[in-house]
């Protein structure tokens, strides 16, 4: 009986941080801008290209989710510490995967994304050339 009680207590103690995560006050820079406008601009531009992992199709720059707030805090403090935006993006990608970045990374898996516009351009040129050539002859 006592063992069970202890186990139960341990369980509660372990689960408490999990339950509390969403109730913690937001990290300081979640809703606070950096004092230096140039740095804030940099941070803002980066935040707009990072996905909020708990929302449906929102960047961390426009989400109320606590996790987005935490990520904003991360981005702002790192920018304030002088890190380059792309380095921060890489750090986040290492942590959360490619999914976090709205800017697709050039990788073996994503090359069709970058090939597609070139293909469409070539196709467009081909279509237009064919049409204009024919009409010239007419």
């Amino acid at each position, binding site marked *: 009986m006592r063992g069970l009680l202890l186990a139960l207590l341990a369980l509660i103690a372990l689960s408490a941080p999990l339950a509390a995560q969403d109730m913690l006050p937001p990290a300081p820079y979640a809703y606070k801008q950096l004092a230096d406008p140039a740095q804030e601009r940099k941070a803002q531009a980066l935040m707009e290209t990072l996905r909020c992992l708990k929302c449906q199709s929102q960047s961390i720059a426009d989400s109320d989710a606590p996790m987005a707030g935490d990520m904003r805090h991360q981005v702002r403090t790192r920018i304030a510490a002088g890190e380059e935006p792309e380095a921060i993006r890489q750090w986040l990608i290492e942590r959360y995967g490619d999914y976090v970045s709205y800017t697709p990374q050039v990788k073996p*898996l994503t090359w069709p994304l970058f090939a597609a*516009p070139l293909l469409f351009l070539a196709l467009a040129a081909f279509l237009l050339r064919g049409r204009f050539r024919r009409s*010239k002859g007419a």
Partner: protein
Amino acid sequence: MIAELGLAMLWMAAALAVLQLVAGALALRPATAHLAGVVRPVAMLQGLLVACAFAALIWLFLNTDLSVKLVAENSHSAKPFIFKLAGTWGNHEGSMLMWVTIMSMAGGFVALIEKRLREETLIATLAGQAFVSLGFYAFLLLASNPFTRLPEPAPEGAGLNPLLQDIGLAFHPPTLYVGYVGLSIAFSFAVGALVTRDVGPAFARAMRPWVLGAWIFLTLGITAGSYWAYYTLGWGGWWFWDPVENASLMPWLAATALLHSCSVLAARNALRTWTVMLGVIAFSMSMVGTFLVRSGILTSVHAFAVDPTRGSFILALLAIYIGGALLLFALRASTVTEGARFAVVSRESALVFNNVMLCGILGIVLVGTLYPLLTEAMGVKVSVGPPYFNPVSAVFAIPMMLVMAVGPVLRWREDKGGRITWQIAVPAAVMAAALLAVELLFAPINLLPALGLAIAPGLAVASLQPLVGRNLRRTPLATYGMVIGHLGIAVALFGMASEGAFSTERLAAMNPGDSQQVGPFKVTLQDIGPVAGPNWTALEATVAASYAGGAATVLHPQARVFANPPGNRTESALLTRWNGQLYAVLGEEGEDGRWQMRFWWKPFVPMIWYGGALVALGGLLALMGRVARDVKRLVATDKIAWRRERQGR
């Protein structure tokens, strides 16, 4: 009783669609041509029956009949009337029924009024239409019956998602659906014309009002949806390249291309295959859009895989219709000649160029939307967002806008560049001056917003040029439509570029009495207190905002809490001036007792939606002009026929 009646009417309508398809198909053979007389009345009756079925569902929602599963899952007795009404289509089954209703009513309407086409082509069109609606009837009746009863009536309904309890969103889906359905009619016309080898100006004229109508509704739907996202999501963004948004943008892009090529076919009997092809693409895109939104594949590929019934059903429909249409196209394309020729410098050429550019953007959006689904299926999740879509679509959009500035002043068939030197020079000078001004006054600005700010004024000037030197009273309504539509694009572009270039954001923790500066505004938080609405309670802030030291205007941003179902929603407060909008949001209370406030000053941002409205207005004027001319012609031919008859007696 009402639910069973609705279901019965739906089955009968489906049976009539079968009849319409079979009779229509048989009527095309000489041996059974006498069946043609059946098709029109059947199409009208079918439209009427589905309308009654949809009315039955509306009745069930208005009376909150909780013995019906759909009502119990999506409505609540305490909801305001308007949201009970909107609840009818604010869910999967109801929205699909609405789709079928609009489609069948449109088909009935075509059967009632269309007299310009060859009778044979019209019958083939109606048969094609029945074929499309049959798929949706099957989907409704077999996989998403809206009239299912619960074994036990529910004690209370589950309610509607608070985000959707907004007047803008109540009418957003119907608007888009009308657009999608209009494209399905255009598709049926294309199929009908292919079947009877009748692709020509008469076909284009019959199809054009439907394409125009669909395009107007899509424009309105997208514009309204963008504004809705802007003010309800509470962060001031107006376009996210979200797959759902892309799903509505793709049919619009295709419809825009179709509309223009349809005009060329109607006026010049050129671009025949191209127009038919675009008709197929436009409808395919609205099916792809429906598939993306309705199958649940967007939430996650895995969610789709767990319950693939509905998704696979739509996917099968997609394959049947698009595949079938492409097959028909491939079989018949050789019999459709290309039509009249034109020179490289001509209005046709400009239109072809822009059609190709529109298709390029469409391709980009399609790839960018579908590719993440593909990689997710392969086990890797990637995101494709604004940093991809913005620059890549600009590659196609910028040349398109430049050609768009010149196209309307070019002559049909053949023109000389030298004739329109001035019409090219003036907008070009405006663009160059604007670019210079932007670079000198406001640097540093990102490349895309800067280009937008430069192109927009030049395009605005260029869009008015077709009116120069014309007798304004004698200018056809359709020309005004074109001018206003193009002007709307310039206006919207200016709004987008200005928002991108000049927005300022201010996040602040404030006590009542504190002030902040945001752009030219000084905002003061005066008070925070509770308020209550019909089915929500809220905290409401009182914020005084004064522009550049002027008199203060009071704003009331709210944080609303809904009970049924539980949920939160921020209600942002907007202060609109001629030169922009102040956007205020009330966030949460911090642990130190101060309130999180968010403010944006967005110069000229409303121009995005004014522009969208102008584009739709342009479409409406063009539609009115075309329809008025058609009616006149119809009356005239009727008169002639009547006179002949009288003389014959």
